[in-house]
């Protein structure tokens, strides 16, 4: 194989593998209050999926699918939602980030109130941050 040529095996395997990595990341985020895992770990798995796509298909194709502006917006938007949830808890539940949803018995329905929402917010935010750092490193090394 010549230098700089793209390998078919790496391309096809990573293309088939990336959706399952993203699904596993979402599973870790959404089951963070029931099983080991949580927002930070699931967000890192989401970022690792996109980084695998970058490494196997190049930065241009990946950035066409996941644009840099939208990911930067996602990161800033998620921390705004975090603070807004805190203010909503402050108004309704009388404490900052207080829980406003009713807590049932754990055996009936696995609802955790704010824990699930905060896990989702933190996971998307951490994934967006890792993808942003990787994009900026790639653009730096191209020049």
């Amino acid at each position: 194989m010549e230098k700089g040529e793209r390998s078919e095996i790496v391309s096809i395997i990573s293309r088939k593998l990336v959706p399952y990595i993203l699904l596993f990341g979402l599973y870790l985020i959404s089951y963070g209050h029931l099983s080991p895992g949580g927002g930070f770990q699931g967000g890192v798995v989401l970022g690792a999926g996109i980084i695998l796509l970058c490494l196997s298909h190049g930065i241009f194709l990946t950035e066409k699918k996941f644009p840099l502006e939208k990911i930067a917006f996602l990161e800033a938007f998620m921390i705004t939602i975090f603070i807004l949830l805190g203010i909503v808890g402050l108004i309704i539940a009388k404490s900052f980030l207080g829980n406003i949803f009713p807590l049932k018995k754990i055996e009936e329905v696995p609802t955790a109130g704010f824990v699930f929402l905060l896990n989702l917010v933190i996971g998307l935010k951490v994934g967006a941050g890792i993808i942003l750092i990787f994009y900026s490193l790639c653009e730096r090394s191209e020049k």
Partner: protein
Amino acid sequence: MNRWIKNILVLSVIIALGIIFFYGFNAHLPSKLAVSNHYITEGEKETGAINIVSSIYLGYRAFDTLGETIVLLITVSSVVFLLKKN
């Protein structure tokens, strides 16, 4: 001579700090375990999360987690700012 006095001062401060930490933060006394026992026994009912780690860092210490995410936001924005092209 001056260096010797400085070294002895530093060594004595380190030994004093070690003694203070050994006796002050000795957490094996039963009266100091009340907070952690409360987290373990009541954490599932009060926050609704079976995972005790989640119930602590998103239930009891959620304000701490907000600061942690702000630290991450500042880190990412500074990296993007320092690595931009021009």
